[in-house]
């Protein structure tokens, strides 16, 4: 077992098993993962900040078992920021807040490849700062179908004076975010609104869209999962890696880029791997910046 002690911002951190190949069919080790998160940290940290992190750990790599950890591991260093979450009918829970580079590296060192966060911050767990449409293709549908749905969604929302942003899920789907950042908006609002949107999408494009969770309705269609707009749900954080065969990342896209990719009709082009994620983010900046700052009110509620 290899160990390496590093120091970030005066905090000591022991990195372990750096040579473990966590993406065996691609040849991507723990050291590569730490390097990815270090280089993307400037962009991912604002999106992780003050959110209760759910760790999804792959101690033996993406082909082996994983486990979720909602509680912040008790063996954490003393400097890891945490918050206590109280939810009705549940035991109170201490969660990790990834607010700085050292915590991000510590979390990544736990082989937590995927970083999942709620749509609200830990200090105001019932106040979502964005509304999300999780576009998930059913059997026989693919990311290009999601792209069509996302582009219609963008236009539909724009007609209601709402600006939306899109990222790849890093798997087969797309996530459309509508920033809210308004302290009076509740999950009841975002859920009700997104559900009404999903239903009108289904009504208008019955061949392409379903708003129903049941698998049998999802064949060859894109499921608009509006139920993610809930304080108990988490989404994969933008710029997080995904545990797939290749080290693919959930990355933001410009709408015009998505339009072009839709014309090219090549689903593979929408799988952005670690190095591409870094180079495009360094070139374009954080395309998701507005998601956490832009204030918008959901109309007609």
């Amino acid at each position: 077992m290899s160990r390496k002690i590093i120091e970030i911002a005066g905090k000591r951190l022991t990195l372990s098993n750096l040579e473990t190949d966590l993406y065996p069919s691609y040849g991507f080790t723990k050291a590569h993962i730490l390097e990815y998160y270090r280089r993307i940290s400037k962009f991912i940290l604002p999106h992780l900040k003050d959110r209760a992190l759910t760790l999804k750990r792959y101690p033996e790599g993406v082909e082996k078992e994983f486990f979720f950890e909602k509680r912040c591991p008790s063996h954490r260093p003393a400097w890891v920021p945490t918050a206590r979450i109280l939810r009705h009918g549940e035991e109170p829970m201490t969660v990790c807040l990834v607010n700085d580079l050292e915590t991000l590296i510590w979390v990544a060192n736990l082989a937590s490849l995927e970083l999942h966060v709620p749509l609200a911050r830990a200090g105001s767990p019932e106040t979502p700062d964005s509304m999300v449409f999780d576009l998930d293709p059913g059997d026989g549908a693919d990311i290009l179908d999601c792209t069509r749905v996302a582009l219609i969604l963008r236009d539909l929302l724009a007609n209601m004076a709402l600006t939306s942003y899109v990222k790849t899920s890093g798997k087969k789907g797309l996530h459309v975010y509508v920033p809210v950042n308004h302290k009076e908006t509740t999950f009841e609002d975002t859920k009700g609104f997104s559900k009404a949107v999903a239903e009108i999408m289904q009504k208008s494009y019955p061949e392409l869209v379903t708003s129903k969770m049941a698998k049998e309705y999802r064949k060859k269609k894109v499921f608009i999962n509006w139920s993610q707009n809930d304080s108990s749900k988490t989404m994969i954080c933008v710029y997080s890696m995904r545990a797939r065969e290749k080290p693919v990342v959930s990355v933001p896209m410009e709408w015009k880029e998505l339009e072009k990719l839709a014309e090219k009709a090549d689903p593979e082009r929408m799988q952005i791997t670690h190095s591409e994620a870094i180079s495009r983010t360094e070139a374009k900046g954080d395309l998701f910046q507005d998601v956490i700052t832009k204030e918008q009110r959901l109309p007609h509620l």
Partner: protein
Amino acid sequence: MRTRDPISESKRASGKEEEPGSHGIWSGTISFSLVAIPVQLVKAVDTGRVSFRMLHNKDYSPLQRRMLCPEEDTIVPPEEIIRGYQTGPEKYIVVTDEELESVSPERSRTIEIIEFIDIKEVDSVYYDHPYYLVPSKGGERAYHLLVEVMRRTNKAGLAKFVLGEREYLVAVKSVEGALSLVTLHYSEEILPTEDIIPEEVKIEADEKRRIKEGINKMRADFDPEKYADLRRNKILALLKKKSREKVLVEAPEIEEVEGKGPADLIAALEESMRKVKSR
């Protein structure tokens, strides 16, 4: 869609991704003096009780439980529900979540053995619930060593252990190459026996001898495989037969009340959708 045997799997059907801790109920270390072994706690028994969903006989909808306030005849939402300890007719002491929390034991990641005892001294009335401890990565060697030594010395470790919100007294012993853990009742939970143990009476030696002979004739080794929960087996057989006969009924798809958003929102969405489609 995947079809599955509705009988054998119904109980274990799970969501698409596992939640934390589904491999073991708990993980941490078992320790005494200077030894600390990483372990996971797993269930030792599954009662295999056949459970049924309650359905509405008109449309087979699965029914839900709700809390009803008889006074107002309304369904009470969770945020309006609090706890009361009943002290007399219509008299309660209200206890808050925070108060309960303040008396709950600190979560702990260790099972600390405090004494080694002879397990035969523990009457079965103390046994509560059985589990196994299995070694976690890196703990295999020390685990086997402990199993072996406990087997040879025939001792069980007595430990305190926090699971969920309670602190349990547990006995850890070596069973067939593994560690088993049994939660024990605290002595104050054991009911007094004075009232139920009958008074002694004089018994003739002859009578004693006859009963003893009777027992000896029926002596056997304990073979639990000879016995089975017949009712459960019959229920399972019945379910299997009925599923072959395709007498399955189907619940209606829970129609999420459609178009129930605010009328204004629906109208606005329809208007913007018209614009989208007309382009």
